[in-house]
């Protein structure tokens, strides 16, 4: 099995002892002098170049979470036993695992692939999907759906088109080829993302309790096997250079910094792994993502409190010119590492051979907690794996409230001109619902397969995506993700809670019970104290919010250095909420389906226009404070929706968020072409708000529902009993028209066409 290679010019541990003063490119690899000195202290000598490569990628911000760690701890601390009782695996593993009953568990996670997707949008986005799917697979689960949270620059900027085209095509290519339904996500345009789009990818998987797998190597003598695609020179240094530093600071590199994915190879790998799990021949498993072999070897050993002896020349290569350092850092896609007991070697080989997946045995697990890597006869790595994988540097970076914050918060929408006449209100409504952020996203989501596999119960444009866990069960999960960078900029603490509240509400409107949270925290440079303050506020907000709603954070991802030049993006904490539904047939659709139903607005509407779509689209304004967070009301609302859903009282439910009531009315009517007559005068008087606020306020804890005549009394009684404010605002109609009394009336075909025209006009 050993390749015939000559070890020329390899920096060995012996050489490192003999040449303590040799200059090493620690700075070019992204390390700070203190970090380089720390490595020397750990090893008692200078690192070899292979060790330096490993430490530099593993201690990068992307892999080590060195700036965020002290804040992420609170997700594990601000919990109650009640919250974690269904958590089979919490934070720190590849993805959290939640027990959803009937012997099933689900695992889900969202991760960023922002920087690669700006450089090479198609492959960047495609490999983002591939990477998150492997994270889910690593837990022992069959991936069952994906979602993507996208943020692009200003729609009229010509470079936005390049990124949108590539990213959307990359996601659809990889996901559709894998046969995974894409059940939802977000698309937002804002000039703050111009030089730094956000491409976050989420995947969810289902597994039987007994199939749970962990990434650890704990039994001495077990084999360390690398399988899947061969290792090539792609994405070398991608982790430390692409994910952790801004673009302008990178010098020219000879090796390509991006990776090319092969979804068909991944599909085979998924089926191969699931068969390996079923045959119970792997004791531990880890996917190869960022930092490649450096990460997989050190994490497996560190998690298992053991060590490993590896022969690096056994790695199957696409290209023989790779140096040992490059092999350790390569981010070639579609690779996995398995820990296999010797007695199961033959069974393992039979399965991978059946799937025509290449593999090579790299070495074995040892008792001594030490990672030894040889290149032929020469020892090139000899390190304690914990120091590489888990005990990296931790920084408590300076924080400072941004200097502009107070002025920004004082600059409210109070003095902005509001629409008063019916004509003005009608014009603004159309301007808002056809603006790129509010318009139909069909142009994008139509490129994704929503229904492949036949388990999809809800998908875009519903508030939440919903899939059955398996074709033999009616048990399902619903997922919604949200983030509003504008709210985050105005108040990062509230912004994170508002993202949580909206995702929670979206899941509740589908009829599912919210159960767990994941996140992808997209921020600027942690070395900027103002960004670090935003991060501190947002994480505290999210942790406090989760505690109040009683749902645990199961895992997540942090993406720093999202900025162009010195200008950071708005704080964009993407929050994903997963809910459980015992029978997907009980799901609540978001669109109206029958005429003659009463339309009710649940919740109270306040004059909350700061940070709103209205302020952005009509006045190009951002200032003031975001809508108030009302988590207790969200809780009550979710419980009421659930009770109503179980009793089958709801014909539809749609959450109110960006664009307010106006947006929800247009979406609900145009979904299935069911018209409505709506009267808003009572709402205006009851809540004492302006006409503009009635239509466009973004007050939280509000949901629009329709109820059939026969269930009307029961439903109103249910809401009153639970103290949910309820206002009847209209009735659905056979006439395909949206009529808002005293304002305007539009044929639904006109609204639908206008909403669906915006994105194709920009990008098709």
């Amino acid at each position, binding site marked *: 099995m050993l390749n015939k290679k000559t070890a020329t010019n390899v920096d060995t541990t012996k050489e490192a002892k003999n040449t303590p003063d040799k200059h090493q490119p620690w700075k070019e690899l992204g390390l700070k002098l203190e970090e380089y000195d720390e490595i020397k202290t750990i090893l008692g000598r200078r690192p070899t170049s292979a060790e330096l490569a490993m430490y530099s990628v593993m201690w990068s911000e992307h892999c080590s979470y060195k700036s965020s760690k002290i804040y992420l701890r609170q997700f594990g601390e601000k919990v109650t036993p009640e919250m974690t009782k269904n958590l089979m695996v919490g934070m720190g593993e590849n993805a959290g695992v939640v027990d959803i009953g009937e012997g099933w568990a689900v695992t889900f996670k969202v991760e960023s692939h922002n920087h690669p997707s700006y450089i090479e949008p198609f492959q960047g986005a495609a490999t983002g999907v591939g990477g998150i799917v492997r994270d889910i697979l690593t837990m022992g689960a069959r991936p069952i759906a994906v979602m993507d949270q996208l943020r692009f620059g200003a729609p009229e900027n010509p470079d936005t088109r390049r990124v949108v085209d590539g990213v959307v095509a990359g996601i659809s290519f990889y996901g559709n080829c894998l046969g995974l339904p894409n059940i939802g996500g977000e698309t937002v345009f804002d000039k703050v993302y111009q030089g730094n789009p956000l491409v976050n990818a989420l995947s969810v998987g289902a597994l039987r309790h007994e199939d749970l797998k962990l990434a650890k190597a704990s039994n001495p003598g077990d084999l360390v096997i690398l399988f899947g695609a061969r290792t*090539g*020179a*792609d994405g070398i240094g991608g982790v430390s250079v692409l994910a952790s530093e801004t673009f302008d600071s990178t010098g020219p590199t000879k090796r*390509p910094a*991006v*990776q*090319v994915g092969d979804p068909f*190879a991944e599909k085979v790998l998924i089926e191969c792994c699931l068969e390996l799990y079923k045959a119970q021949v792997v004791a531990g498993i880890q996917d190869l993502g960022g930092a490649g072999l450096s990460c997989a070897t050190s994490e497996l050993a560190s998690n298992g409190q053991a060590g490993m002896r590896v022969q690096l020349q056994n790695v199957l290569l696409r290209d023989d010119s790779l140096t040992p350092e490059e092999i350790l850092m390569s981010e070639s896609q579609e690779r996995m590492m398995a820990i296999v007991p010797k007695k199961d070697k033959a069974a393992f080989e039979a399965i991978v051979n059946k799937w025509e997946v290449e593999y090579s045995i790299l070495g074995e697990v040892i008792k001594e907690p030490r990672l030894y890597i040889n290149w032929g006869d020469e020892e090139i790595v000899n390190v304690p794996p914990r120091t590489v994988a888990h005990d990296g540097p931790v920084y408590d970076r300076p924080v400072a409230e941004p200097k502009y914050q107070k002025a920004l918060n004082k600059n409210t929408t109070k003095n902005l001109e509001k629409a008063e006449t019916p004509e003005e209100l009608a014009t603004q409504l159309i301007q808002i619902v056809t603006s790129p952020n509010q318009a139909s996203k069909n142009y994008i989501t139509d490129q994704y397969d929503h229904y492949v596999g036949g388990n999809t119960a809800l998908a875009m444009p519903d508030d939440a995506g919903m899939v059955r866990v398996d074709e033999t069960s009616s048990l399902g999960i619903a997922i919604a993700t949200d983030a509003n960078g504008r709210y985050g900029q105005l108040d990062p603490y509230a912004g994170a809670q508002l993202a949580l509240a909206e995702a929670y509400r979206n899941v509740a409107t589908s009829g599912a019970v919210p159960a767990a949270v994941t996140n992808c925290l997209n921020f600027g440079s942690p070395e900027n104290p103002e960004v670090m303050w935003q991060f501190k506020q947002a994480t505290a907000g999210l942790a406090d919010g989760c505690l109040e709603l009683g749902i645990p954070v199961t895992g997540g991802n942090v993406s720093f250095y999202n900025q162009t030049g010195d200008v950071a993006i708005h704080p964009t904490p993407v929050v994903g909420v997963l809910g459980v539904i015992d029978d997907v047939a009980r799901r609540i659709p978001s669109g109206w389906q029958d005429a003659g139903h009463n339309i009710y607005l649940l919740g109270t509407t306040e004059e909350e226009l700061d940070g709103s779509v209205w302020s952005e689209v009509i006045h190009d304004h951002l200032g003031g404070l975001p809508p108030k967070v009302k988590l207790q009301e969200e809780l009550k609302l979710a419980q009421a929706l659930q009770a109503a859903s179980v009793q089958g009282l709801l014909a539809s439910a749609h959450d109110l968020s960006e664009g307010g009531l106006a947006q929800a009315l247009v979406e609900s009517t145009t979904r299935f072409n069911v018209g409505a007559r709506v009267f808003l005068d009572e709402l205006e008087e009851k809540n004492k708000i302006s006409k503009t606020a009635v239509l466009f306020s973004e007050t939280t804890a509000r949901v629009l529902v329709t109820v059939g005549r026969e269930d009307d009394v029961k439903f109103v009684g249910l809401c009153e009993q639970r103290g949910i404010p309820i206002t009847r605002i209209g009735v659905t109609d056979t006439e395909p028209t949206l009529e808002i009394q005293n304002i305007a009336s539009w044929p639904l075909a006109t609204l639908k066409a206008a909403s669906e025209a915006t994105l194709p006009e920009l990008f098709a």
Partner: protein
Amino acid sequence: MPKIIVEVMPKADLLDPQGKAVANSLNRKGHTEITAVRIGKRIELHYDETPTEAQLEEAKAFAADFLSNGVIEDVVAVTVEA
């Protein structure tokens, strides 16, 4: 018809899934002597007259920044075919 031929290949170090799939198929058909396949693209630019030296230079420029994706591809040849 006079042409300028632009040949573009995926960067040598990158995975070429298409080439890999074709190589596997060839091997399966018994051509085990073929160790690898890489697949690029050939682009023809048609002209009425034989392209001038200046036009060739121009073609080289847009071959690099428009006809290929420099992040994952290399332009390996730009030639005139009379």
